[in-house]
């Protein structure tokens, strides 16, 4: 039994090591070209028949130059198997192979020339891609893809029994499967009014993750998990409603990282959402006593010892101003000019214990996340930017506060079927 376990573990490790070694910059495995080379040789041989031929190869694709001899060798061997000999001797017959590509795949084209006659054969080859590994310095942010989806994801909640995803018009339940999350169920939210063009949503766990409450513009959905004899099932009901949305409030650490055992009790805070736009109205329940502006994002952040309060509300107004509400007073926060509209609190255990993770506001094609500390009224970078390979569309804190989740819209140039990616972002102290 132990031996079997050991063998399995070693096999898994070997497989992981092999997979980890594959990235887009590295040369593909030699076997990668066998199938297309054989297919092209089949087609060429069908045109040409047995005999001698001159073979030339031109690379008009992104295949690394060092791969060309391998491809040539494969083609020569496959042609030889059909009786087509590429001896290099003078011959009236020639094969001009062009390794080409288009926006969808690689294309290998053989022009078969017999005297004045030219015939064309082509095979399609799917390309491979890279897995990108982010890097950082200082407080380090790391990301891990949780899910990819074709449709926009507004929010998601990981529970012990599955992953609940809020899409603009549906709640989607995913269950555990060997290859990751597997879609199990879709429930229509049932809006009667048109959606907004920048749809947003929130999902919060209730009763230890056995229930949830999800909000999208003008609708509230409630879900509960019921265990069955073999497997459980989620029941989801949605209704029209302009109930205030619960702002994400994870347990907040009290004080610096050296004292993580205590946490601050925070009353759940709710905010009214403008269901025809993409922002909150500024009205909170319960009220904090301050006259808040209309805002895109709000988060409760812990305050350092000696600041006079345990926590404060950080709001990002639709005018782009980031302000801190403390004891009923709104104060501007400096150093947040390059923040985007979304941020979330991450309990890192580093520094004062929690940092604000904000998306960028620049105009480059790829977005990034960065952690900031707020010792006073100033946001101070606490990590290097973490490249997100797309545009951050939503950002929220996980129920345990130890990670944040983000939805990234991938660049259109990737032309992948799944355009949205849900990532979990965690951190480590350096």
């Amino acid at each position, binding site marked *: 039994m132990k031996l079997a376990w050991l063998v399995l573990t070693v096999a898994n490790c070997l497989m992981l090591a092999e997979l980890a070694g594959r990235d887009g910059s590295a040369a593909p495995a030699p076997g990668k070209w066998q199938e297309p080379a054989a297919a092209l040789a089949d087609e060429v041989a069908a045109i040409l028949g047995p005999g001698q031929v001159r073979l030339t190869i031109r690379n008009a694709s992104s295949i690394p130059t060092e791969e060309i001899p391998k491809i040539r060798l494969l083609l020569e061997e496959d042609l030889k198997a059909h009786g087509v000999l590429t001896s290099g001797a003078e011959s009236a017959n020639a094969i001009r192979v062009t390794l080409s590509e288009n*926006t*969808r795949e690689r294309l290998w084209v053989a*022009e078969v020339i017999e005297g004045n006659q030219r015939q064309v054969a082509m095979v399609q080859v*799917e390309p491979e*891609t890279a897995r990108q590994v982010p890097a950082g310095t200082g407080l380090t942010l790391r990301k891990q893809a949780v899910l990819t989806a074709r449709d926009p994801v507004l929010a998601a909640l990981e529970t012990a029994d599955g992953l609940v995803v809020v899409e603009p018009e549906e709640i989607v339940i995913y269950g555990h499967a060997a290859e990751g999350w597997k879609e199990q169920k879709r429930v229509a939210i049932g809006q009667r009014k048109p959606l907004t063009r920048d749809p947003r949503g929130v999902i919060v766990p209730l009763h230890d993750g056995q229930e949830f409450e999800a909000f999208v513009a003008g609708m509230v959905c409630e879900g509960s998990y019921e265990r069955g004899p073999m497997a459980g099932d989620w029941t989801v009901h949605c209704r029209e409603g302009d109930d205030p949305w619960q702002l994400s409030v994870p347990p907040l650490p009290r004080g610096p990282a050296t004292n993580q055992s205590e946490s601050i009790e925070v009353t759940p805070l709710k905010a009214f959402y403008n269901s025809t736009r993409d922002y909150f109205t500024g009205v909170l329940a319960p009220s904090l006593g301050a006259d808040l502006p209309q805002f895109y994002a709000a988060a409760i952040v812990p305050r350092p010892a000696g600041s006079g309060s345990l926590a404060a509300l950080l709001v990002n107004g639709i*005018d782009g101003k980031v302000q801190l509400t403390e004891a009923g007073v709104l104060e501007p926060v400096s150093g947040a000019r390059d923040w985007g*509209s979304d941020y979330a609190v991450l309990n890192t255990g580093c520094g004062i214990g929690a940092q604000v993770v904000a998306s960028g506001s620049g105009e480059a094609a790829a977005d990034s996340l960065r952690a900031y500390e707020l010792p006073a009224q100033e946001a101070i970078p606490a990590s290097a930017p973490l490249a997100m390979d797309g545009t951050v569309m939503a950002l929220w804190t996980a129920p345990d506060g130890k990670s944040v989740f983000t939805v990234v819209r991938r660049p259109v140039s990737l032309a*992948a079927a799944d355009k949205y990616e849900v990532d979990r972002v965690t951190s480590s102290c350096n």
Partner: protein
Amino acid sequence: MRWIVLRRVAINCVLAALALHGAARTRPHYGGTLRVEIEGDQWQRQGGLARRLVLDGLTVIDSDGSAHPALAVEWKSENQDHRWQFTLRRGVHLQNSEMLTAAMVVTSLQRSCQADCPWTAVRVVGTSIVFTGDSPVPNLPELLANDDYLIGFDADDGSRILGTGPFQQTGEAANNDVQRFIANENCWQGRPFLDEIDIHFHRSIRDQWLDLSLGRADLVEVPAEQLRQAHEQRLTVAVSGPVSLLALAVADGGVLSDANLRSAIALAVDRNSLSNVIFQKQGEITASLLPSELTGYGFLFPADRDINKARELRGGLTPPVLTISTDSSAQMQLAAQRIALNLREAGFNVQVAAPGTVHRTDMVLLRLTLASNEPRAALESLLRGVGVEAPVVDDSSAGLYKVEREFLQTHTLVPLLYLPRAYAVGGRVRDFSLSADGTPLLAGVSLQDVP
């Protein structure tokens, strides 16, 4: 388990929508008026800006090149693509609040193409629209995204065109050269971020750029041949992939019924001089119908000029005077003059017809729009654009190549250059992007200086 995700190679942003800014890092703001200036007509059939603001199609081409639901939520084909059934989206209203019905869609579609439709018949079945064809129509979902088949109606009083799109015509004009469009609050796709769009049409490129520099315009056109100049002037420019095919249509009747003469014309045209001189190196030389980025086999169609072979094919014949026509734009006139010069060098006697003076000419210099970035649908759409209505059934590279080769061997159309579409935007414009065919997508645009 696939750790290595298969990716479609992105050589460049070929035909995908082109996001100018980093999209929703800072969430888009609602409100404001976008000022747009164009040289042509906002309602022109292909690529007309107003058509895309006011009207929707049953389908839409996404950046991945495939047809996605728009006014139709789903579709299925039967009988080997001879019959298609599209289910209409429920609860969609026209801009006059009237509910869109399947019968209305059928009426609009019948009017859009009349006798030249890709289908034989279209009718209502419940809440669905059913198309039937004598020939298979495998690309119908992609074709229905084309500008030709957008769903629209004239208002009862004839003052405006009604659709289901994100903006609606106001029916009033500030003056003869400005048309105002306001946000459709009940748009099924959601209200756009902008309150209004003012389109100033028939505006010269020079005036457009001047207005942009003075802050009087937010979005102006950049002709391909002026892209370099726009960059030199540090304009913020969004450029599409190759979406506009410059091609010479050659009549196959009269003196040009001789295939050798048509072949001689194809060989005599100097694409390099057109690209370098007339279009300032902004065009991609092509002898194939589809751009090479889309197919990977463009090199199989030689684009080099062969004046000797052209003379040889002409065979000492001196055909009577041939005429070539094109539209009235200065650039197209210059291009036509250049082609006429090329042909004279090969022994043809060619004259360029003044715009609008001759109804039927031997050659027409055209700009054809690549309506899709899905190769099969794009090819079929291009062929339909020049009157060839055979469906493209095989979507393999070899199949597409065969269709192209067989058509181009007739020498009735000589592909010359692929040109991009480009626009310059002002500093307050956010999230500007171009559709697959290079048309500005203005429903997602917002302004930085509001509220």
